[in-house]
């Protein structure tokens, strides 16, 4: 359920690399339980912002709070309370399905009973129980993506960051993946997602669009389409980012 309770607060976030301004005074809030789409052209500054919000890079200035923790002083706390998944980095190919889950359970500091219960539940949901001793490298891409997402929320984080999670998968898998996202939202997890598929932007509760380091639009897909007099999010994006 979407509330107006912010789980991410960003105020005047600036990130500079030398004289280059990657994030130019970003301000926005992400509410608990929503699917927040973070869009923008390549090079608009999305990855830089995500890295800061995940506690992997420190901002030049501004105030940011993620899952109740400060991005300057409490990055370790942030990391414990979020999940992260991208298309590029997912799982260890040489480990089995089960070993990957156990590894991440350990990284997240879950206790054994908790981890075992979640593992059983997850393998069952993904219909992967029969494959739990297979090496990740032997699995089709679509299975890996779904597994990577499930592992990213294994420890029941407050927020999960998804950086282009569905690139390259077939259309059926892409929809199954979004069903997993909706299920996570039903459990109260907030989803922060970037994508180049504009139809996926329609699935978000709210969408922000970045251009040249700034947020140039932020609203529900419905309102954005109205505001830009566009039939779909693809048109909105083209009007804004071109």
């Amino acid at each position, binding site marked *: 359920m979407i509330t107006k309770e912010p789980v991410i607060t960003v105020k005047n976030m600036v990130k500079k690399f030398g004289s280059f301004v990657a994030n130019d005074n970003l301000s926005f809030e992400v509410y608990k339980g929503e699917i927040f789409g973070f869009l923008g*052209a*390549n090079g608009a500054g999305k990855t830089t912002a995500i890295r800061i919000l995940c506690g992997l890079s420190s901002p030049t200035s501004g105030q940011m709070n993620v899952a109740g923790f400060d991005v300057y002083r409490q990055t370790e706390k942030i990391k414990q309370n979020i999940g992260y998944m991208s298309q590029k980095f997912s799982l260890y190919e040489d480990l089995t399905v089960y070993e990957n889950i156990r590894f991440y359970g350990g990284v997240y500091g879950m206790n054994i009973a908790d981890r075992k219960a979640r593992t059983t539940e997850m393998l069952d949901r993904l219909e992967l129980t029969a494959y739990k001793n297979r090496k990740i490298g032997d699995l089709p*891409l679509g299975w890996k993506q779904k597994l990577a997402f499930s592992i990213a929320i294994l420890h029941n984080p407050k927020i999960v960051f998804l950086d282009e999670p569905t690139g390259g998968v077939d*259309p059926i898998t892409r*929809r199954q993946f979004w069903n997993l996202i909706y299920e996570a939202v039903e459990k109260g997890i907030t989803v922060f997602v970037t994508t180049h598929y*504009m139809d996926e932007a329609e699935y978000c509760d709210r969408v922000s669009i970045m251009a040249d380091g700034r947020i140039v639009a932020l609203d529900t897909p419905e309102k954005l389409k109205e505001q830009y007099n566009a039939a*779909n*999010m693809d048109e909105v*994006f083209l009007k804004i*980012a071109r």
Partner: protein
Amino acid sequence: MVRLNWVCPEKSNSNSGSNMIEVKDIHKQYGDTVALEKISLSVDKGELFGLIGPDGAGKTSLMRILMSLLLPDGGSASMNGLDVVTDYKKVRTITGYMPGRFSLYPDLTVEENLRFFATVFGTTIQENYHLIKDIYQQIEPFKTRRAGKLSGGMKQKLALSCALIHKPEILILDEPTTGVDAVSRKEFWEMLKRLKEMGITILVSTPYMDEASMCDRIALIQEGHLMSVATPQAMIKAFSEDLWVVRTKKIYPTAKHLGQLPSLISVNSIGQVLHLVTPRGKHSVESISQFLFQNDETEVSVEPAEATIEDVFILLMNNRKSKS
């Protein structure tokens, strides 16, 4: 003085028909994994042909075979009449290739990369500049920058320029738009259209179904198997079941309810609406509306609609799964 004429369509043309690319029963296997399952297709001269499918479908294997970079385990393929196995040296002179992964020299500058590719093919930048002018002009201000230091979009433009600089008859592009934002993707397709107008035959692969409409003809490929080859329009027309657009405020719950619809084939979200597929003649707007009403879905609308390429792909995928 005899000048080597590397690219001369008339001379290299030993092809009687109009097929620039001819693929016949191509088979490729990696261990037990079948990458291409007896694939046959042909691409006409001057055609913009799209190979559409997800990662692992076999798109790259097919392109590498056509580029003579990979040997097939069975079948044959020719490029403008030249066999890709026996005439591989000639094949390479008449084709331009842009692999999926950035494969230029990162330590050379933009201009050095371009000059290198021109020289390897026995030509000069000046000679074929008109072909790349539109594209190269956009990166020319950075011509002294090392290729490794370019942004994604600029790398892509340089790679395309390098693939074109020897005036190929056939251009093979492996997922040029993957991971590229919607605006740059649109610009890239506009560039391809202009190249096509210059008479270049183009084979391009993509995992984005919405790019199908930019192609003259497309092949839908999944797990090494060609599911369909036709114009995008013909493919949509040949959609064999009924398709309904369901509009709802709550996509996910409504989709869940529709999952219980009797004799349902599939229900998928396509953007802000649901696409519901049912067997031809089985349902009507009334029967679906009534079903939704019984499930307390009151704020919904149902109407018949035309399929998209994505719907076609999903249906063909499901048909294949239920057969195997």
